[in-house]
């Protein structure tokens, strides 16, 4: 079943991961441009905008920061919001643990620096289907980071470079990508039950709980199904 050999983290694998995620990353640039433009309009200085995209590298949290930005910024509410939005990364990192545990700790944490939705989904899909590589996580992460930064700069300099991203379906890229990753893996009754529980919990959280709790609620609900319904020994 699961490999006990450490996943590959070579330059060639990272290069492959980079090119595999680059087409999707180009759409990420459109969101980066939207952020760059919004940040300029909010009144952030150019250095601060680039500094934020380069070091925070988390779109939703960055947009949320703009909402709280003014002559004075409430630091603690901003950091609590940032943590709440990015709490999904805690779950995503945890799902990679069985493989990352086999990698020396320096490389283990270094490969998580650019962890985000798309490169996590692709890397997990690779690992679960027996492609024992971290190329999509690291190389794909670098592709996403570079295009996020390039998009931010383009938005600051030229405004949103696509007049109406929705007309081209750009707003659905992440949704279609996540759906394709969900359907790419192997399915069984157990995994479908986890999806249903996770989807229902996320839906309920999105309607009734505070904003940005839906991913954690869905992930934990699916995790409980997985913990209670164990796979039979082979």
């Amino acid at each position, binding site marked *: 079943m699961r490999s006990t050999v450490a996943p590959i983290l070579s330059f060639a694998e990272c290069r492959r991961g980079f090119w595999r995620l680059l087409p999707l990353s180009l759409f990420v640039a459109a969101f980066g441009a939207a952020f760059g433009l919004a940040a300029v309009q909010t009144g952030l200085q150019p250095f601060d905008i680039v500094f934020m995209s380069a070091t*925070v590298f988390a779109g939703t949290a960055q947009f949320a920061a703009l909402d709280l930005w003014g002559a004075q910024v409430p*630091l603690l509410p901003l950091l609590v919001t940032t943590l709440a939005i990015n709490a999904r990364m805690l779950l995503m990192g945890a799902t990679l643990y069985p493989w990352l545990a086999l990698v020396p700790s320096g490389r283990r944490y270094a490969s998580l620096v650019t962890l985000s939705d798309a490169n996590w989904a692709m890397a997990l899909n690779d690992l679960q289907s027996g492609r024992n590589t971290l190329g999509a996580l690291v190389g794909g992460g670098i592709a996403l980071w570079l295009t996020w930064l390039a998009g931010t700069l383009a938005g600051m300099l030229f405004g949103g470079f696509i007049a109406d991203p929705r007309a081209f379906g750009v707003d659905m890229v992440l949704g279609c990508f996540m759906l394709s990753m969900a*359907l790419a893996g192997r399915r069984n009754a157990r995994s479908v039950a986890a999806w249903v529980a996770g989807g229902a919990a996320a839906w309920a959280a999105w309607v009734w709980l505070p904003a940005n709790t839906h*991913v954690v609620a869905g992930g934990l609900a*699916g995790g409980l199904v997985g913990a209670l319904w164990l796979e039979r020994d082979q």
Partner: protein
Amino acid sequence: MISTAGYGPALIIACMALVTLLARFGGVFIMGLIPLNRRVEGFINGMAGSVLIAVLVPIALQADAGGRLALLATGALMLWLKQPMPAIALGIAVAALYRAL
């Protein structure tokens, strides 16, 4: 409250970056403290798929008819061909086409 004059913004952004990095590292760090047994592995596996679905839920709920058709098209082609890139391309094309009509 921190003033956004002088080094204020850089300090605020550095704090945000640190919190985000802790979220990126935290999941793996916490799992390192928990002994990995079958039940924990089951939890991780159940969580993996449902996080994907949980990210999708609000996207599908907020989407217009074109966006929902895009997801439907991606899902259908994915079940048929099992190839992500054509499935995503079709989904986006469907959304763009529906909105253009």
